[in-house]
Structures are given as C-alpha cells and as structure tokens.
C-alpha cells in the first residue's frame, strides 16, 4: 500500500478540510466556548453535525451502524480537528470509546453505539491515575459484589469527564497494581451513585475531571469484554488513541507552521520582509522537514495498525513521539517568529501552543514513547 491517501481518502480529506475550516474553526468554537466559560468545553451542535457527516461512527462497523473505516480515515478527520483546534469529543468518543465498545457484547453495543454514532451521547475514558501516563499501573479497584462490582479509587485527566454521558473505566479486578492481567473495562454512567467529578479547565481550554469512585455499584453487564481480560482491549484503545492523537498533532503542527510562514511573508522590519532573513528561513525549512517526517511516521503507523501488523505498536510510539517533537517545535518557533504579538491572546498562534502542550501529554508524551520505542526494540 503506498504511503499516501488513495482516491477515496483524498476525497474524505477534502470534505473534512472544508467542513472543519467552515464549521469547526477557532472563532466559532475554541474561542467562542472559551470566552463564554462553557463548562462542557465543546459545542454539542457541532458534535451532532459531525454525526451527520458520518464522522462519529467512522471506526464503528457497518453492522453496528458505523462506516467501518480505519485509522487512516479517522486520522484524516483528526488532522483537520488539530489544524482548527476544534474542541470535540471525537478522539475520546469516536476513537477511544468506540474501540472499546467494538470489543463489547452485542448487548452493550446495542445499548451504547447508536447514541455515539448519532452524536447524541458523549463518551469519556478514565485510564490515567497519576499526573503522568502510566497505564501499566492500575490501582482503581472493582471488587465482586453480588451479581456485579463495587468500584473504588480515582482517575485523573478524564477529558470531557463532567459532560460525558458515559465513562469507559479501566479498573483492577484481580492481581497487584502493576500486573499485566487482572484489568477489566467498565461502561459507567457519569451520574452513577458514588461517583464525583472535580472538573477543571486545562491550559488548552478543554475541560477535564478528577473523578472519584466511592463504592460505585455496577451491574455485571457493565463489563466490556471479559472480566480480568481488559488489558488487550485497553491496549487496542491506547493504540487507537495514540495514533489518533498523533494525527491531531500533525494538524496542530501544520496549522501553526502555515500560519507562521504566512506571517513572516508579511511582517516587515528593517525595511524588509522578515521572511527574507536567512536566520528565519533555515529554521522554517528545518521545521517544514520535521513536520513532513512526523506526517509520514503517522500515516505509516495508521496503515500498519489498520493492516494488523505486529510492527504497529512500535511505529505508533515512533509517530506519537515524533509528532510531539515536531509540533512542539512548530508552536515554539511559531510564537518566537511572530514576535511580541505571538504573546497576545488576540493572535491564534498561542492557542496552538496551548493545545500542543495538552495533546502531547495525552496518552504519553515524547519521553514516554521514546522510552517505549527503546523497550519494544529490546533495550
């Protein structure tokens, strides 16, 4: 398979590009909701529109009402979300939660997937427990209780945790905190009794929660997949979420880069366009190279994941790390090359810097994934 979009994918990219630029742009969404102190952090109207476009169910099979597409296609939409800094539950609901639910019983699928695909419900995922992404260690406990489970513990960095209808929660049903086995995934209604959500606004204006579970009672049928068999599903979610975040990061990086290149072609100092200065040209050219490579790593990882390759995990971590580095460079160079106005809230470049920071942290930063590349390579 060549490493570029085929005709159908190119058509989808055209659609997603104009849709997000028109309907999901910074003025209409990120600034709009932020300036109104919206506690959801995104617009439900846009989520419904995205459902009408077919985006919400891209990774859901056709049998379950979705489009049965792959991660290359989801990545196409995510890149445009990144480029427009569009706040939406796409990554948490349509990528992470949808991947989990694809492993669920037909009963659970029937209960939750239609709402997700229709854009009527929003899903959050509760995986992280500490300030850094450490999915190998899960201490949040679900103990057998009657026909169901009792959930105790805490999760943090739950994006859209307070506005979601449902949370997919990774909990420990057996074994020690660091055990590979003994993980079970649960579909938990947000307002289940015993659950509390401490919602905080993040640097990128997204809303996240610290969520506590104090003896939350769950039916046995809240289990996604098998009891104690959640690790494989969690890994599938992480693969999907990480490569999705990488694709979104490519959008953030190229959005910031394009805006900056445009700016240095217009801004005059010392009687000439600052883009004429070689000091800036070489840095811009280096940035371009890094962003192109990050994009290549991302599409390679998407294709490997869609093809079920055993090399997918390695390449996903390569892509996530590379994108974090490239996008980090794009936003830092972006602010610097914009000069003073790059520091103002009025200009969008700073918004890219904020989003990049949060996105890089999501499901593992560059350090986490470079370390993982080393581990997967055997050192």
């Amino acid at each position, binding site marked *: 398979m060549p490493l570029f979009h085929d005709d159908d994918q190119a058509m989808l990219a055209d659609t997603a590009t104009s849709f997000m630029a028109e309907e999901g742009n910074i003025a209409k969404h990120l600034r709009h909701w932020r300036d109104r102190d919206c506690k959801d952090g995104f617009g439900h109207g846009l989520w419904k529109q995205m459902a009408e476009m077919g985006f919400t169910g891209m990774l859901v099979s056709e049998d379950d009402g979705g489009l049965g597409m792959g991660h290359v296609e989801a990545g196409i939409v995510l890149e445009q979300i990144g480029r427009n800094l569009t706040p939406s539950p796409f990554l948490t609901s349509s990528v992470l939660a949808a991947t989990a639910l694809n492993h669920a019983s037909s009963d659970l699928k029937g209960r939750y997937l239609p709402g997700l695909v229709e854009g009527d419900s929003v899903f959050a995922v509760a995986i992280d427990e500490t300030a850094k992404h450490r999915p190998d260690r899960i201490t949040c406990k679900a103990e057998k209780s009657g026909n169901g489970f009792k959930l105790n513990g805490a999760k943090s960095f739950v994006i859209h945790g307070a506005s979601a209808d449902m949370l997919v929660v990774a909990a420990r049903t057996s074994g020690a905190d660091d055990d590979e086995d003994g993980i079970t995934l649960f579909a938990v209604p947000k307002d289940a009794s015993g659950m509390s959500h401490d919602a905080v606004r993040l640097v990128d204006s997204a809303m996240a929660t610290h969520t506590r579970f104090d003896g939350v009672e769950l039916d046995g049928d809240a289990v996604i997949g098998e009891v104690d068999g959640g690790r494989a599903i969690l890994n599938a979610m992480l693969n999907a979420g990480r490569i999705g975040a990488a694709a979104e990061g490519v959008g953030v990086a190229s959005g910031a880069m394009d805006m900056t290149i445009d700016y240095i072609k217009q801004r005059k100092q010392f009687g000439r366009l600052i883009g004429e200065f070689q000091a800036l*040209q070489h840095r811009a050219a280096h940035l371009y190279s890094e962003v192109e490579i990050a994009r290549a790593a991302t599409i390679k990882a998407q294709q490997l994941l869609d093809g079920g390759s055993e090399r997918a995990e390695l390449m996903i971590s390569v892509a996530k790390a590379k994108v974090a580095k490239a996008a980090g460079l794009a936003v830092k160079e972006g602010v610097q090359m914009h000069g003073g106005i790059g520091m103002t809230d009025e200009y969008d470049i700073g918004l890219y810097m904020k989003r990049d920071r949060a996105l890089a942290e999501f499901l593992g930063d560059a350090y986490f994934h470079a370390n993982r590349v080393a581990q997967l390579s055997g*050192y």
Partner: protein
Amino acid sequence: MSDLEQFRSETRSWLEANCPPEMREPVRDDDDTYWGGRNATFKNDAQKAWFEACRDKGYTVPSWPKEYGGAGLAPAEAKVLREEMSRINARPPLSSFGIWMLGPALLQFGTEGQKQRFLNEIARGEIRWCQGYSEPGSGSDLVSMQTFGEDKGDHWVVNGQKIWTSYANHADWIFCLVRTNKEDKYHGITFMLFDMTSEGVSTKPILLISGNSPFCETFMDDVKVPKSYGEDVPGYVGTINRGWDVAKYLLGHEREMISGMGGGDRTAAIGAAMQRQAGKTGDELDPLLRADLAMFDVDALAFTAMSEKFMDEMKAGKGHPAQPNMMKYVGTELNKRRHELMMSTGGTQALEWESETTGGGKPSRNWLRTKANSIEGGTSEVMLNVISKRILELPGA
C-alpha cells in the same frame, strides 16, 4: 494470487537459489562492494557469482529497460525486489556512479545510441564512471566553474581542474561539466563524456581526515574530447551549452541517493545493537546515552517512513519536486548523529585508529567520513536555502 504476489514468490525463490550466503552479510570492508570496470577484480567466488547472476537477470539495474541491460521492472515490482533483497540482507551486486548518476541522466537526456552503448556497459559492470563537477573555486556555487573546453570543430580541447572526484583513480570514464561559453554562466556549460586514459588526464588522491582517500583531484591538460564517438553517440549529454540542465537533474538524483544512506529498513534503529555492543565490552548504556539512542531511533524510524512515502510519491508523480533536498538534508544529518552515538557507545575502544579489534579504526574512520555527508552533493545550508525558496516560497531566498 495477484501478479505482484506471484512476482514476490518467484523473486524469493530466485534470490534463494542465486544469492550466496556470504552475500547476505553486512558490507564490512571496502572490497565488499563491487564497483565493476575494466580493472575490477572480485574479492571471492561468491561476489562473482552473485554479480553475474544479477547481471544476467538484469538485476544490477532492475528498473532500467531490458534493451539497456535492465530487467524492465515496473515500480511496484522494483519495490518488491528491494523488499525481498532487504529481507535477506542481500548486498547490492554492483555499485557505481554509472548506475546512480550517469544512467538516470542518459535515460532522461541521452540519444538512443548513447543508451545502447553506455547503459549496457554500466549494467554489465564493464565501465566504471566518475563524476567531474566541483572545482577548487566552485563548491556550493557550482555554476561558477571554470574548466574550459575550446571548440576545435569535431572536438574540444579541455583544460582545467576538478576536485572531489570520487574514485577518479579507479574510474574508466568521466562525465564532466566543462565550460564551453564564458559569456553565459548557466547556458555555457556542456556535459561531456570522456575516457580517463585520454592523454592529458591525471588524478591525485586527496588524503581525508578519516585517513582514507575516496576522492581525487583530477587535472585536464589539453585533453581532446571528441564531439562524437560514432553514429548517434555524441561525446556529450543533452545539448551543447545546456549541460547545466543535466547537472541540475543529476544533483536531484544525487540528493536522493545520499538521503537514502540515512534510511534503510534494517539499519534505521541502532539502540538495540548499541546495547549489545556495550555488553561485549562489559559496559552498560549510560541512562542518558540510552535516552539519546531512543530519541535517535524515533527520528530514524520516522525518517524510514518518510523515505518510503517519498519513494511512493515520486513513483506516483506526487510530492513536491524539491523534496529530494529535504530528504538529503535530514538523511545526512541523521547519519552524522548515528555515528556520533556509535562513537559514544564505543567509548575508548572506538578511538583505536589502527587495531585489529576495530578492523583498522573502522568506527572512528567511518564517523569522520560521515562529516562529509552534509557537505557533498549540496551542503545542509544550501538544502535549507532550496527548501525556503522552492517549497516554502519565502521572499528573497
């Protein structure tokens, strides 16, 4: 089974039958690479057998047309062959500037007669070519070159000096940029072809910081270059005074080739190999060195994907025409970083310049050699200029 799968399985069996085990080992010494030419000798029977099998099959230049000594493979087939060769670690059967540089130029600009003669000679490893571009006063600013060919009717008389001519002392023929009009900088250069044994040609190897001499100075003192070597075989490529078009085309090719040196699916990541190497000398990787290796592996594996994407896009006629400059820039910078890390992992052992353990100072000599990667074929700074100008369209670049 699709045609391509059929081709893959045939290729796999052919390689199994024809690629000797010795030719599936990494290239270690200079004579592990077979360059062909009038005076070539084989290091061993395996090298000879592998070369001859490929030559007879057209696999020294798989994608060249059959009538010119190639196998006429379609891009997708050529990719399969590359993948299958890389799967078993097969060495290239024949390396040469004829394959990498002159061949592509002739395929693009040559006459039928030139293709019939020179391409076949290259494909069969009969003639070894070298490239005469740079001059002492013309490095990055190549077009300022001064070597002059005086028009004498049916031939030119060429005088001047070239520098950085790779392996000129081993080459049979040279493709050489010669000024034929002093009034017009860009439209006054002719891309000439001549025999290195011509009277007046002499070479002098240049000793590099690596202690090796892969490059020469090449002197031309009243060298007679015929305008024709026979019917439809001109002594120059393209049009007289329009050799710069050919040179520019070839520089693009050279950049692709050099950029490829940083890629390669099997050699891209080095961390695991470095840990094994450290283990051999009883060392462990320092945690910060391990971190640098991991960051390098991220960049190297990402660049491998970029190389694949770049090749796929080239074949499909997509991608920006100036993209080879980006590939060259990143590929060479990566390769330099790779060797810095290999030196750091090797520690004091890697410092040994003349010892058996290091095969005569391989680590340090190779490390020093890579410093030229970002200079030859266009410096990194020139590559960044080209990206700024042609891809980003920055003003006044």
